[in-house]
């Protein structure tokens, strides 16, 4: 099958199509882990994006259908150097090709993905169109240019759950606001016996109060945090009523709610090797990350938020804590999947913070 990838800057790359025939639109973003394509493709944070793995051999261990981070593929398209036709793994139930085909997602392979990574690094994230089944480069570029930017899209609405649901537990009750939550965040909480209520992104603070939660967790999710209008106002309203935790998009939402600003990174952090330094201990943890926006550190003064973690590579904000309220939040993914589990202990920190007597009303005061 023919395939072509066109970028808004006019770059055209022709390769071999795999997965479903069709057109995929979105920002072209690159991710740098060797493994974890099943988890990444099903990560709702990739909604609205065409995902490219920098590691050239993808699909070696097949697809197990056991590591989904949502109900199916969320990335709009998939770009790789080589896709494996003959996977080998005891859990493999099929190839990446058949996986994408089954989900109706187009892919392109056989192309110089490193060239595209360097292009993205130099020019910043570019809008792209992937056509599988045809190789009309001009058409691909035209479509790439015509599409809206990621900040103009309401992507959360496409990935949040339609209705609230519960995952019972014997411990404290967490309301998780689903901005595109990864399955493993819920699993990590469940493993700690948390009584989970997952609510859609448009749930009001009144509705949340009705669940009598011990804490509120804002999940990861796709797109520009400014699009998460309801979540921002919910945090604003509940911040002094209960512990509030955030992961990734949720982290940016908390920052916005408390008056800080966010901005778009040139090309984001997407990988399993991002070093995060805990400023309190000096220890560096290797984390899994997937974000294109970040919190502006200069905008934090006066919000009561203090930076607890920074990215050791570029100094961007990776975590903060409120000076008086039980608000803790990180930009990276402690739930991994894919990626290293070094920071999974953060869930214990969340649980502990929710267990502080009177945390619900008085915070740390």
């Amino acid at each position: 099958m023919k395939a072509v990838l066109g970028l808004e800057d006019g770059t055209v790359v022709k390769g071999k199509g795999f997965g479903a025939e069709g057109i995929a639109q979105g920002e072209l973003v690159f991710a740098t882990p060797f493994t974890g394509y099943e988890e990444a493709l099903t990560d709702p944070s990739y909604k609205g994006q065409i995902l490219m793995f920098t590691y050239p051999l993808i699909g070696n261990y097949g697809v197990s259908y056991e590591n989904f981070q949502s109900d199916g593929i969320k990335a709009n398209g998939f770009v790789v150097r080589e896709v494996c036709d003959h996977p080998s793994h005891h859990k493999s139930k099929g190839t990446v090709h058949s996986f994408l085909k089954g989900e109706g997602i187009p892919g392109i392979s056989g192309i110089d993905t490193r060239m595209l990574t360097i292009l993205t690094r130099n020019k910043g994230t570019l809008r792209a169109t992937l056509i599988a089944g045809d190789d009309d480069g001009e058409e691909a570029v035209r479509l790439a240019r015509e599409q809206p930017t990621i900040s103009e899209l309401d992507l959360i609405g496409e990935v949040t759950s339609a209705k609230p649901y519960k995952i019972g537990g014997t411990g404290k009750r967490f309301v998780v606001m689903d901005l595109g939550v990864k399955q493993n965040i819920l699993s990590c909480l469940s493993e700690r016996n948390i009584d989970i209520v997952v609510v859609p992104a448009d749930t009001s603070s009144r509705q949340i109060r009705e669940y009598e939660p011990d804490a509120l967790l804002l999940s990861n999710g796709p797109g520009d945090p400014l699009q998460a209008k309801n979540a921002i106002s919910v945090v604003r309203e509940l911040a002094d009523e209960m512990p509030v935790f955030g992961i990734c998009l949720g982290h940016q939402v908390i920052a916005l709610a408390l008056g800080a600003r966010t901005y778009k990174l040139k090309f984001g952090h997407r990988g399993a090797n991002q070093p995060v330094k805990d400023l309190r201990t000096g220890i560096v943890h290797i984390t899994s990350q997937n974000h294109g926006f970040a919190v502006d550190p200069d905008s934090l003064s006066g919000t009561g938020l203090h930076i607890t973690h920074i990215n050791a590579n570029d100094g961007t904000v990776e975590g903060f804590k409120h000076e008086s309220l039980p608000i803790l939040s990180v930009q990276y993914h402690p739930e991994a999947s894919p990626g290293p589990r070094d920071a999974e202990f953060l869930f214990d920190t969340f649980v502990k913070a929710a267990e502080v007597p009177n945390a619900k009303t008085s915070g740390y005061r």
Partner: protein
Amino acid sequence: MPKHPDIDKVILIGSGPIQIGQAAEFDFSGTQACKSLREEGVSVVLVNSNPATIMTDPDVADITYIEPIRSDIIADIIAKEKPYGIVAGLGGQTGLNITTELAEKGILDKYDIQVLGTPLEAIYNAEDRGLFKQMIEQIGEKAPRSEAVSSIKDAMKVMKELHLPLIIRPAYTLGGFGGGIARTKSELKSIVERGLNRSRIHQVLVEESVLGWKEFEYEVMRDANDTCITICNMENIDPMGIHTGESIVVTPAQTLSDTDHQTLRSAAIKIIRALGIEGGCNIQFAVRDEEYYVIEVNPRVSRSSALASKATGYPIARVAAKIAIGLTLDEIPNGVTKETPASFEPTVDYTVLKIPRWPFDKFTTADKTLTTAMKSTGEVMAIGRTLEESIHKAVRSLDIQMRFGEWRGDEIEELLRTPTDERLFIIYHALRHGFNMSQFEELGDVAVQRTARVVIPTEFQQLQSLRDFNSEKIAKLTSIDPFFIRKIQNIIDMEERLRKRMSVDNLRMAKRMGFTDERIAELTGRRREDINDLRRKSGIKHTYKMVDTCAAEFEAKTPYYYSTYETQCEANPSDRRKVLILGAGPIRIGQGIEFDYCTVHAVLALREEGIETHIINNNPETVSTDYDVSDKLFFEPLTLEDVMNVIETERPYGVAVQFGGQASVNLAIPLEKELKRRSDLDTVILGTSPESINIAEDRYLFSNLLRKLNIPQPDNGSANSVEEAKEVAKRIGYPILVRPSYVLGGRAMEIVYDETDLERYVREAVKVSHEHPVLIDSFLQGATEIDVDAVSDGENVLIGAIMEHIEEAGIHSGDSACVIPPQSLDDDVLQTVRDYTKQIALALQVKGLINLQMAAKDGRVYVFEANPRSSRTVPYVCKTVGIPLVKIAAKVMIGHSLEKLGYAEVKDIPYVSVKEVVLPFDKLPGADPILGPEMRSTGEVMGIDRDFARTFFKAELSAGNALPTEGTVFISVQDDDKPAMVSITKKMQDAGLKLIGTAGTARYLKEHGIQIDVIKKIHEGSPNIIGRMRRKEVHLVINTATSKLSLKDGYDMRRAAVDFNIPYITTIQAAKAAADAIDMAKKGKMTINSIQDYQRELL
């Protein structure tokens, strides 16, 4: 700055000579460590006995001792230098073992020396098999069931519990040395016995077998602040049961899911934390589906860490050295990006393949089975964007004659089951031609089950499932994951496509899979040149991608490249004046670390001259492939096509072939031909012209040259057939020296004593033909062999040193101990040697290095050969005489004159320096430990002192042949040698040594007034010599033999000496030197002087 300002001076222990299990990787890590520590203002005292290393260059450490790596000598050095601390984890197993020994002997306490970096306790917990297992279980991880034992009896007990087969792993050894797989009770006994002998603490682990499981490794680092990172993981394509150093290894792991990978990664981090390592370590896992075991931890830099450094660009040793003095990972900059810290995990966007290089082309009788103990001497690494490309590149980097399709169908199955050095090619063969399927039924089900899960496009279904079946079967027999077998199948499929149809599309596809133009030409029945022209015309050009630790996420400053066929080339050539230097490739016998030394020196010299200098090389262990040595590093195979690609992209004005040894010299003529053909390129070959190289290499032309110059040479001739050979031999007279033309390290060279032997050699050993004539030389029995290293600019000649061999002519020069200055040659002979050197160098118009081999007999000097290139003695000469010969050669090569450079003569040295070789027999069961015209040694050591006897003693000590100053010497020599033994044994007797000998030898010596007891030979019944050796009642063996018959006779004895770790001597000259050395060692103390101090004496 170190964290503690008290850390002003540290002692670093190198790893000694190159041997199987320990190649150039510790020169790479040690050199990095020296640089790294000195950057922080810490002064470095280095001890290493290996002169061929960059780290022992006088400007790498502050104070350098080229001395035996022995705790008594290091204690003297510590007493003299008073360092603050010792860094244990950077000198390989040797450094680790010495550190623990120094601690146990109380030397560290006595001088208040701190162990920096990884603490002693961590070393014990990782190296002591019992403690290790306990620690692993404490943290909730699993190790295979095992018992640490210290006797054969206990091992037998363990066998009853754990059942055969069992794995035996000696504690504190190198390269799995002394261990093995026991499938029977008697194998268990013999391996345990050998292992106990080899272990520093007389302990082996007897372990439940996980043969056939997959093996994965993690390179992990930790700092004092408890930050832990993994540098990379590696997948051994070969299963458990084959030492990782013997396995084909790919990085990153290919067949682990993210869940699998994270599970192992988390376990690795847990382990490094539990051990409390500060620095780096390597952790090995055995994996089968969901199950895994922790197999081993190496709490130090290793060959794997060198591979990981080169594979990712992350300088593990450099960072580990800084951690040792208290810095934390986030305080250390990432040298590649310059802007990000070292506290991150590298990621790559290519695949890296390592293939070991085995010495079986040299040791035809050695057991070629790959097992848990290492047998390979070196390795190659290749980088590609596809695994097929990496495989192709790695295989052509090996510099071996590939044997495709020489196996019988019924052999294949057994060969697939039993791993040898040829397994990759056997798999290829089996896939291509199929093989007898005795196990058809048994394997049938598995194949069907597995292939059922694979989605196959319908049009190929039938054909493909047949292939899958074949792959599955091979996977089953080899325990290699079918994923990798498929990749080889892909190569075969591509070959078929090319055979059927040559199209631009197929050509592009083939290039992206790593096929060479030459191979494509072969498959399509065309000429290499035509394929080359066609693909360039079609725009199918190589591109260079950068190794940058981060998959292009950040802009990297590192000039480290590999080739691939993509669209964007990142080489970005400058318009500066450039030179490309060809490296030496994998460490193999005859082509050792010495040539890497020369490559690095040439680079440094040209950079000093302001020339942009590039390296092309494929050996991951070396300093030359450290990315900050050259202006650009091309990590590539060293074939004509790969070198031409660099030339095409970078357009250097010159390319240097003389530093990488014979392998790179062999490229001179093909390169010149191709450069002539490619009129678009004006690159020239620098230095000595290819025509001159050809004269020196071609025995016939060289012989004519000597005749013209009136220089004596051994009577010689060449033959194209058996009959011709017999005629020539008759004319010259036996014994003769026979060899094929164009040799590397004396491959297939033999001394032949009679016609029957000659016939066998010519017919079988070298398969004489018109293209491959056999060269026949008269063998100068009893002559003294001489080596000369010199530099010529075409007008003047600078003689670096004349070396006198300790063994007589007939032993390969690479295996002979030698001494500077010569001890027995008179001035006339030396003057003749100088004259001949000058005459030959000038006649060949040598511009650069030249090495000559000569022999003196009865006052007459004969010339054997001239090599217009670097030699394996050059580093030893440079260290001894304090003159940078290679740098001078490099500068001469680009047009400077010796006169302008200010070098006319080398001063005589007021001390003595001996080079001794290290032989691999102990690592190669079955190989006959005897020296001959075929080179055997893997590396060398240097001894330096005030007189020959003490120097020789030191050199032997460094080479692992500690000469006894008390105990028993066993002597068995051939009749010709008996007279000379009288004075030798007299000296030993006077030194207080007890003598025993075989009946004949003892009788002769007794008759000459020596006290000696008779001991039985093996076939004479017991008690015999082997028993005495086994009981450690013999401390030195002197056994000479040169005739074919006694060679076989003495084999068991020599082999026993090797297996029981007893120093042995096989030449009368060495015996004499040993007697002098023992005598002197009894009388006086060794001199402890740094190389910088010795060289100051020359100013």
